[in-house]
């Protein structure tokens, strides 16, 4: 079909993430791909690192017509989007972003409340974010789980702390920006961050031991478009946005896997030792961890979502994709 020559539309994207992050790579890929497939009829202007608004204020940018697309983490609004951080209520689950990402898509497809929630907020969810691999960086060597006892670990969020306590770790809630100095002054002995943020904050300069405890992959709804802006697009372009959004997820999975390898290599070169906990130790830890999924179900159900069914379906979908659950979660 020959479309008449029209003036290109310039859309605005605002991201909470800094250049160099995997979200930056994904969003950039998304924008370039949309421009390419619309033959230059859609172009983008972008703001990074929360330049236009603080991370926690990004949502209003898209809801209130300041920008067309935001790239952020829904974890800031668990009251509005109760399913935010869904995958992360399951302690120590799969680290494979493609499995987690596919399972969540399939799960949510059978719960219409999910998409409706975005529409109610005047948004459309174009692309999910897998939040890279979480890693525990330590200033001192750790051989067994027993060595963790009494160590202070810097982290954020609701569940990490609950997972750390059974082995005697002391959770210290602290923003990423403060970790470097805190590790230097020994205010904390360890820090939990996704491997890319770990790299951005250059944590391995002050913490030379990496513990792969298998913390799993955090998955979030990440690239959100204003419904008003979306509806202004032609059906043909709307389809391009949806398709490219999904493909951007796959791009991000591959990107994260490659990046993990590269970052691990560069950390090793910088003198970081990687520590694997023994199978027995990991099983002991897993058995002692509270069922935070059960807590998450309560949270979902209090906000009108069928928590039990969603959690059950997700575990089934994961199993279908070949993931063997070491323990059943969300048991009432």
């Amino acid at each position, binding site marked *: 079909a020959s479309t008449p020559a029209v003036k290109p539309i310039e859309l605005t994207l605002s991201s909470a993430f*800094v*250049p*160099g992050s995997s979200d930056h790579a994904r969003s950039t890929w998304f924008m370039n791909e949309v421009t390419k497939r619309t033959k230059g009829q859609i172009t983008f202007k972008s*703001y*990074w*690192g*929360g*330049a*236009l*608004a*603080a991370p*926690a*204020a990004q949502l*209003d*940018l898209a*809801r*209130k*017509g*300041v920008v067309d697309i935001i790239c952020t983490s829904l974890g800031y609004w668990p009251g509005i989007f109760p399913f935010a951080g869904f995958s992360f209520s399951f302690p120590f689950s799969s680290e494979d972003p493609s499995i987690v990402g596919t399972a969540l898509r399939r799960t949510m497809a059978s719960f219409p409340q999910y998409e409706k929630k975005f529409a109610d907020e005047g948004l459309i969810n174009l692309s999910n974010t897998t939040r890279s691999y979480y890693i525990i960086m330590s200033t001192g060597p750790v051989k067994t789980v027993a060595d963790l006892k009494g160590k202070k670990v810097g982290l954020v969020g609701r569940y990490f702390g609950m997972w750390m306590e059974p082995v005697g770790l002391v959770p210290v809630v*602290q*923003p990423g*920006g*403060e970790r*470097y*100095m*805190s590790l*230097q*002054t*020994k*205010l904390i002995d360890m820090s939990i961050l996704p491997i890319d943020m770990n790299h*951005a*904050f*250059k944590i391995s*300069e*002050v913490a030379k031991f990496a513990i792969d405890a298998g913390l799993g992959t955090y998955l979030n709804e990440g690239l959100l478009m204003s419904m008003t802006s979306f509806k202004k697009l032609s059906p043909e372009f709307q389809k391009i946005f949806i398709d490219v959004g999904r493909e951007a997820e796959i791009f991000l999975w591959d990107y994260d896997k490659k990046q993990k390898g590269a970052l691990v290599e560069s950390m090793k070169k910088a003198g970081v030792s990687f520590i694997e906990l023994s199978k027995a130790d990991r099983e002991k830890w897993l058995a002692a961890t509270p069922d935070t999924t059960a807590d998450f179900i309560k949270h979902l159900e209090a906000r009108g979502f069928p928590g039990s069914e969603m959690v059950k379906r997700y575990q089934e979908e994961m199993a279908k994709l070949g993931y063997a659950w070491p323990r059943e979660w969300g048991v009432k």
Partner: protein
Amino acid sequence: MEPITIGVAGIVLLILMLVMGVHVALALMAVGLLGNVLLMGFNPSGWLATGQAYYAVATSVLITIPLFVFMGILAGISGLSSDIYKVIGMWVGRFRGALGVATVFSCTAFGVVTGSSMVTAAVFAQVSAPEMRRYGYDKRLAYGICSSAGAIGMLIPPSILIIIYALLAELSVGKMLIAAVVPGLLLALLFSAGILIIAWLKPAMVGGVASIAQAKATWRERFAALLLLWPIYVCAVIIIGGIYGGIFSPTEAAAWGALILIIITLVTGGQKRWHILSKCGLQTVATSAMIFFILAGAAIFARFLMLSQITPSVMKLIFGMGFSPVHFILIMVLIYLVMGCFLDSISMLSITLPILTPVVKAMGIDPIYFGVIMIMAIEAGLITPPVGLNVYATKGVAEPDVTLEDIFIGSAPFFILFLIAIPILIAFPGLITFLPARLF
């Protein structure tokens, strides 16, 4: 109207409003709101501004502002500030300009505790400026020293600005923090030299002979006077020991500082101690409200300038001109100095770095060397009119007879010293790169 035209008109309107005596924060907020209404419409402008106003204030690291200000006010009321300057006067009062130099180094030392320039300026404007004036310092100079030397603390770790710079430019936070230490000390030395030159050329500016009377103390009296300062030692040991001993973070240190001064006030305040605490508390929240109102206004105005696309347009123009690295650095310094007249430091970074970083990499300039020079240029913006956040913070706590203009004028010599420090750093990269190369 083109966005850039609206942006330029906004700058003109801001200057007009400021000159006409509209409160600074209000002028920033009003122009930002109006400009964004023109760029995006009424509702988007209002929502963007509200989010900015809230998160410019509701940020955990900013809790240090009221707490350190409270500490400063209590130090003033309890007579601790005058004791400090009495002792400094006894020891070095016979050297003209010594109190000013002592203030510069106190601000630098306070930089070890806080990562915010405005906090340092506000604290020292209360603790030091009135004392310097009592010893005969010109009011402009006394307040100019505090507002300018407040900027040094941002070059000494901890530093919010350097962490944000390193993150946005994908650099090592640790290396960047260490790299800025020598430039920070250089600035302190230059400021001190500047004060001594002023004292030499115009003795009346630093109290002429008035302070010399203090210097007649005997050695015995001098040592005895050191004991007077015990609360300072307690404070320093607890705060610095607490941060570097891994007991609390720099953010949490502010609460400990406030607690110590509250205890000192309760112990030494006599019957009026509760009255003193509530009165100082009221003064603190008023000062914090003033500072946060300016931060909110500056944030809203900065979003407007950002959306008007002035900076990226100018920068893209410059990138295309094929400058040599040194010329490029000089031009970027100039751009940051101009931007510094209208924008706060963090906004400047988030507007420019995503565009600038790849260009610097492509030109083969050492990014840490480049970054520290730019931080220096950005910090100079804290004391330049019309939007000079350190000057505003200083004015907010200054004695009633001191005007905003007085402080801008008093800061001008230090701005010139910034302009001397920057070429020195450009010419001698080792001042920046030596320490990080040694330590990592």
